[in-house]
C-alpha cells in the first residue's frame, strides 16, 4: 500500500505542473463581478426556494401552453389532404429514395397519367423543387450560428418519345455544363424496344432548382424525389476533431524539440505520424462533405413513352393460352363454390341423421297408427 507522503508528493507534483489558463483569473473576476450586479447580496434560502417553485410553476404552465399550441399547429399541418391519401403516390416506385434521413412528406397528387403509369411528384421535407428555397443560400444554424450545410440530391424519371432519346441526353449534358456542373455518370441503351438512359448530373447547389426545372421540360415527369440532408453536425464534428488533432500535433512537435534522447524522439515521431494519419483521414472526410454540399446530385432516368411492341401470338399458343385460362377459370369457380357446397353437405348430413333418429324412435308408432 502506498503511503500518504508518497501520494501527497506525487499528487502535488502532478497538480502543480498543470498550467493555469492565461485569462482564467480575469475571466473569473469578470464573471463574479458581473454576477454580483444581478445577484442578491445575501443568500436567502427560503426566498430562493420560493423563487424556484415559482419558476418551476411558470415553466410548467409555459410548457403546457407551448405544447398545446405546437400540437394544434402540427396536427393541422400534418393532416394530408384527402386527395393525397391512397392516391397515385401509393404507386410511387421510388419512395425508398427518400426513406432515410429526411422523410418525404407533402405527397402531391400529380395524377395525370402517362400511358398506364401514374405520375407522382414526391418532394422531400423542406424542399420545394420549383420554389425559391432549393439551392438558395443555406440558412444559418439556430444553435451555433454556423451556416447550415445541406447536401441535396434528387431523382427524376421522365417519359419521352422514342425519337427524343439522343436529343434529351445531349440536352441534359448541356444543362449540367451550363449550370457550371458536369455529368458524373451516363448509361444509355438504344435498343429498339427498351430504349432508356440514366444520367447523373452534378451541379452547383445554387443551380439545383433551375436544373430540375430545366430537366422537367424535356419530357413528362413520372416521378420526382428530392432530398436534403443537413450535414452541419457531421461537418462541425469533423472540423472540431480536426482542430483538436492539429493542436495535438503541434504540441507533439513542441515536445519533439525538447526531447534529447533518441528513444524519446522516435516515440514522439511515431505519435506524430499516427496523429497525422488521422488528420489526413478527417481532411478527406471534410473534402467529401464539402463536395456533397457544394454540388447537388440529380439522377435523371429517361424512359420511352410508348409501351413495348409485342408480336402477335400464333394460333397454337392462343389455344394453349385459352386452355390454361379455362383450366384456371374452372379451378377458380370450384374453389369459389366449395364453401357453399361444404355447408350444404354438412346440412344434409345433419338432416339425414336427425331424420334417421326420428324414424327409429317414432317410425313403428306411426306405422301402427297409419296401418
Amino acid at each position, binding site marked *: 500500500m502506498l503511503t500518504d507522503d508518497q*501520494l501527497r508528493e506525487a*499528487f502535488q507534483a*502532478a*497538480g502543480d*505542473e498543470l498550467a493555469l*489558463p492565461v485569462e482564467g483569473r480575469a475571466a473569473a473576476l469578470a464573471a*463574479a463581478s458581473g454576477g454580483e450586479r444581478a445577484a442578491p447580496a445575501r443568500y436567502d434560502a427560503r426566498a430562493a426556494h420560493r423563487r424556484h417553485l415559482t419558476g418551476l410553476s411558470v415553466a410548467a404552465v409555459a410548457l403546457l401552453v407551448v405544447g398545446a399550441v405546437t400540437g394544434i399547429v402540427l396536427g393541422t399541418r400534418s393532416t394530408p389532404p384527402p386527395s393525397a391519401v391512397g392516391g397515385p403516390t401509393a404507386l410511387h416506385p421510388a419512395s425508398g429514395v427518400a426513406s432515410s434521413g429526411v422523410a418525404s412528406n407533402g405527397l402531391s397528387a400529380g395524377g395525370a397519367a402517362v400511358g398506364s403509369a401514374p405520375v407522382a411528384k414526391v418532394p422531400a421535407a423542406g424542399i420545394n423543387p420549383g420554389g425559391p428555397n432549393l439551392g438558395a443560400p443555406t440558412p444559418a444554424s439556430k444553435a451555433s450560428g454556423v451556416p447550415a450545410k445541406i447536401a441535396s440530391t434528387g431523382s427524376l424519371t421522365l417519359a419521352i418519345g422514342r425519337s427524343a432519346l439522343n436529343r434529351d441526353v445531349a440536352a441534359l449534358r448541356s444543362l449540367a455544363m451550363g449550370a457550371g456542373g458536369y455529368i458524373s455518370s451516363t448509361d444509355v441503351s438504344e435498343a429498339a424496344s427498351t430504349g432508356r438512359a440514366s444520367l447523373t448530373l452534378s451541379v452547383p447547389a445554387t443551380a439545383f432548382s433551375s436544373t430540375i426545372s430545366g430537366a422537367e421540360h424535356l419530357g413528362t415527369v413520372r416521378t420526382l424525389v428530392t432530398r436534403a440532408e443537413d450535414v452541419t453536425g457531421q461537418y462541425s464534428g469533423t472540423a472540431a476533431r480536426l482542430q483538436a*488533432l492539429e493542436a495535438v500535433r503541434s504540441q*507533439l512537435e*513542441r515536445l519533439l524539440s525538447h526531447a534529447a534522447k533518441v528513444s524519446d524522439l522516435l516515440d514522439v515521431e511515431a505519435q506524430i505520424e499516427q496523429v497525422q494519419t488521422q488528420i489526413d483521414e478527417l481532411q478527406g472526410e471534410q473534402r467529401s462533405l464539402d463536395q456533397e454540399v457544394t454540388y447537388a446530385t440529380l439522377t435523371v432516368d429517361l424512359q420511352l413513352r410508348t409501351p413495348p411492341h409485342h408480336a402477335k401470338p400464333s394460333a397454337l399458343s392462343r389455344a394453349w393460352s385459352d386452355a390454361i385460362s379455362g383450366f384456371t377459370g374452372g379451378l377458380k369457380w370450384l374453389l369459389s363454390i366449395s364453401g357453399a357446397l361444404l355447408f350444404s353437405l354438412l346440412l344434409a348430413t345433419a338432416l339425414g341423421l336427425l331424420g334417421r333418429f326420428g324414424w327409429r324412435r317414432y317410425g313403428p308408432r306411426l306405422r301402427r297408427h297409419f296401418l
Partner: protein
Amino acid sequence: MRGADGAGARGEAPTALLEGWLAEWYAPAYRTARLILGDGAEAEDAVQDAFLRLWRFRDAIPEGEAARAWLYRVVVNACYSRARSERRHEMSSGDESLLDGLAEQGAGPDEKVAGALSGTAVRAAIAALPEALRVPVVLRYYADLSEREIALAIHRRAGTVKSRLHEARRRLGADPTISRLLGAEEA
C-alpha cells in the same frame, strides 16, 4: 479563506476582496478541479462557476478554518455540475498539461520529459478512478484537506471518507505504473 472570514474583510472594496480571493485561491482551485475533471476547459468553467457562487453568497461563508473546506465544497459541487452536464473531451487531457509543464519547468530536457511523463501517469491514474473515489483522494492529497474537511466538502460522513480514501489508495497501489514510479522515487 483570508478576506472572507471577518467583518473587516467584508468591509473591503468588493472588487479588491474578490481579487484577493482569486490571487490566493484560483490556482489551487483550478488545479483541483482539473484533477477531478481531467479537462482544462471544463475545470476553468467549473472554477469560474465556483467563484461566482462564492461571491454571490459570500455572507454565508463560514469564518475561520472552515472557510477553506467551504471553498472546496463549492468547487467540488461545481465540478459535479460540470461532470453531469457535459461529457468531457478525452483528447484534451494529459498531453496539453504535459507540454505546458515542460515549458514551465526549468530542468534539462531529459528531466523535463521524465517529470512530465510521471505527472501524466499520476493524472491518468487519478482519472481512472471512479468519481466517488477520485474527489476525496484529490482533496486529500492535492488540496491537503483533512478527512473531516473532505466530509464537509462532499457531504459525506467522515467514516465514508476514510473508507473511500482507503479504497483509492488500494487501487492506486495496484496500478503498476504508479507503483513503479513511486517505488523508483522512493529507491
